[in-house]
């Protein structure tokens, strides 16, 4: 087991290095750099910026160096906890991301809880009452959520909330609380705004969750040991809870690997439509304006979370399901 752990961790390092190189190259692929973006933006407003100043800024940001050198500076910095400098915000990347992280985690976490709370009971009900009216009705609802375009639903809910409750449009709280310290009012204001993104992002995720749980449970429920348990006179509830459900949530555990980065990056499209102060829109802007270090460090962070998440879900699966063997090591 220990050997397995060490091996897994050793594999992570080249994986992350490869990801960092690919990320860097892709960010650099579009023509120009951050300064050309800046220049275009200025000129579109009729302002001018002269070449010598641009050159000065290039030096300032280290953009005048060869590509390969820029890459090593960046990677080397990351190893020592320096994620580079955001051109757009004129501050270290760590500060920029840190500011938005908390709210992103709040939104994503609430969404994930929402998805699980909704889809679990429905999934179990659908599996145990297969082909009943309830099964069809609830599944239909789930599919409806999946089929509605997120951005459209977001806009409709925004309008509805604004007209009926007077909720301010977009964002995660009323403007008055933006720079205020934490208070009950602020928490309530966040809750008032939070339900829209949670419902919008959540509804699109429930359908998949419901169907997977339903399918897995149905597989399990027809197995020998369930029949045996029933024959022994266990209550239906106990029959369901003791083994089949534990087996059926196997895919969800495997999903943890994807869940971690999701918590951090959130649903970018919805966040952009709703103008949430989360990391998704920030990443998109950074990519657009070629704010290289901000975008790159952020993507690296997501990659790290994914790699770690997959590792954790492997461990959890092994703990949960003894049938899963670690690379055949235990058979010898």
């Amino acid at each position: 087991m220990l050997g397995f752990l060490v091996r897994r961790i050793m594999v992570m390092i080249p994986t992350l290095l490869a990801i960092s190189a690919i990320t860097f190259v892709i960010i650099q692929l579009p023509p120009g750099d951050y300064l050309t973006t800046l220049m275009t933006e200025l000129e579109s407003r009729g302002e001018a910026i002269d070449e010598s100043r641009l050159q000065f800024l290039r030096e300032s940001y280290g953009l005048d160096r060869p590509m390969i050198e820029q890459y090593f500076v960046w990677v080397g910095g990351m190893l020592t906890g320096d994620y580079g400098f955001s051109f757009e915000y004129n501050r270290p990347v760590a500060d920029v991301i840190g500011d938005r992280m908390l709210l992103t985690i709040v939104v994503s976490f609430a969404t994930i809880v929402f998805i699980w709370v909704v889809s679990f009971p429905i999934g179990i009900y659908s599996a145990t009452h297969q082909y009943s009216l309830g099964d069809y009705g609830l599944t239909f609802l789930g599919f409806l959520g999946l089929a509605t375009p997120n951005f459209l639903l977001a806009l409709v809910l925004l309008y509805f909330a604004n007209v009926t409750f007077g909720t301010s449009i977009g964002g995660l709280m009323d403007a008055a609380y933006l720079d205020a310290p934490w208070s009950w009012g602020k928490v309530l204001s966040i809750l008032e705004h939070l339900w829209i993104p949670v419902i919008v992002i959540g509804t699109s995720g429930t359908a998949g969750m419901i169907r997977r749980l339903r399918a897995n449970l149905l597989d399990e429920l027809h197995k020998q040991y369930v029949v045996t348990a029933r024959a022994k006179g266990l209550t239906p509830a106990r029959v369901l809870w003791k083994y089949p459900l534990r087996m059926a949530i196997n895919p969800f555990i495997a999903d943890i690997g994807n869940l971690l980065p999701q918590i951090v990056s959130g649903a970018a499209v919805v966040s952009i439509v709703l103008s949430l102060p989360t990391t998704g829109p920030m990443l998109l802007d950074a990519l657009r304006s070629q704010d290289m270090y901000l975008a790159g460090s952020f993507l690296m962070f997501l990659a790290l979370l994914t790699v770690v998440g997959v590792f954790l879900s492997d461990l959890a699966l092994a703990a949960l399901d003894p049938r899963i063997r670690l690379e055949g090591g235990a058979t010898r």
Partner: protein
Amino acid sequence: MSFHRLLAGCLALAAIAFLATVPAAAAVETPYFAEQVAAGKLPPVGERLPADPRIVTFDEDGAQQGQPGGDMTMLMARAKDVRIMFAYFYARLMTYTTDLTLEPDILQSIEVEENRVFTLHLRPGHRWSDGSPFTAEDFRYWWEDVILNKDVPPFGPPPEMLAGGEPPLFEVLDETTVRYTWKEPNPLFLPSLAAARPLEIFGPAAYLKQFHVKYADAGQLKERAKAAGQKSWAHLHNRMDNAYDNDNPDMPTLQPWINTTAAPAERFVFVRNPYYHRVDPAGNQLPYIDRLLVQIADGKIIPAKAGAGEADLQARYLRFDNYTFLKQAAKRNGYKVDLWKTGNGAHLALFPNLNTADPVWRDLFRDVRFRRALSLGIDRDEINQAIYYGLAHPSNNTVLPRSPLFRPEYRQAWTRFDVREANRLLDEMGLTSRGGENIRLMPDGRPMEIIVETAGESTEEVDVLELIADSWRKIGVKLFTKPSQLEVLRNRIYSGQTLMAIAKGVDNGIPTADMAPTEFVPMDQNQYQWPKWGQFYQTGGTAGEKPALPAAVELMDLMGRWRTAPDTSARAEVWHRILGIHADQVFTIGLVNGTLQPVVVRSTLRNVPDEGIYNWDPGAHFGIYRPDTFWFAKPG
């Protein structure tokens, strides 16, 4: 608005002293500061104002004296947009009035001799927002230690400070007087001080010296630069000295409001400047409004937020096609929607690339008959009706009627829809053979297919091109649209890969004779009709190509004549020659102008004109209408 009542040239010859016609009332303490003054944290208002504050009058139509107080919310899409606020604030050494005459603002007065010698008088007792004195030292520091310092941007005098290629002689005459003397006239100097993004000739020396190696301890400075993630003291200074960017809350300012929030933030709070130099006739220190709140929201959601009544004043990020939606919710959410005219010379224009790499096309584009034929082959009325609901004006890419330089022929030359005349011109050029679909053939036998490239930012451009494609078919020319992306498009234009581009026309469609005609002369590679000629001027002849058409050479000569013209009427004469050449030569094919910009204004907000001009320079969008005089009436 009284743009047609132009009093041009008030500054050209003689000394102008700004005389307040209103007797100064005793200054009244602003309620916002009353507590701080009582606690002894701030001096009383009488001591905060300069000895001779600028008294703002309200003879504009509909503007009235107001009362202090209130918060004004505006929406912006990015943290960086707080720089736009600097334009809106519009406190400048010199400012434009709404009829586009220049007058001293931060300056108490100015004396100009022969447009060469500029003597600037500051207001005695004027202070920066942190209370430190604003004096000639702030000009000296900026000139000697920033502009002339080889290590700090701008690395030498900016182009507006060169006349005949020479920098000025700078002198400090006394604590409140400085003088700039050029050998040749420098007509660019004063307009650039009054620009939306002004030429910077002073800075808060007392504050900035702590970042300057000449005044601070070098070792400590190195540490500070490192701590701020900057390479050297020069980079640190450059990071801290951007008045225009509004990105350094510690930096003292002379503007009506001070930014108190550092990026990144979801909301930027600007509070009133206790040392601001303008008062109203009743003795209230301006600005009227206590705080400006700039809320950051995604650009796409800003129209929706404005429609929900979340902005007190908003124009940026609102498009004309949001108008109906905004209007619909206006009553319910307590605001009104005005339509302001935009100030571009053309809302959209076609730019045939006279420097295109393809020699056959290049020769065609350089033939004036060809350009005229293309212009005659466009049905501008149809475009106006179909896309702009008939609210715009068919026009060349030239000055707007509100400019004193306007003449109807500049607008109308070669803009009528005349297929027969266009065909006659093309036949006269010998382009008589036709290929498939009745499309004319070029001299080398290729079908005449013009690819027009767009920056791909709006479907509007594509729609307009569809209409033009239909009418050009009637003159035997085929049009293809190619949307790309702004940076890509520009690089293609610069290198001559494009045949033609569609984009906005000249930025300043409301110039006076005293503003430089740079946009009409090949002086910038950003002029899509002659990028290489512009580059040639920009780089001092090291790159690009020498202008080859006689008309373009003449434009360059005229620019030189404009620079050295002795007075406004001589400059106006040069302008008319330039505009005449443009109308006749059709270097750019303007389509429509005078399009409209929706402006959302809170119902209780006063002094925002119902019909303003939405122009960047001159105008600074809201700036020229003096947002420091906007105020909130008590609802009721």
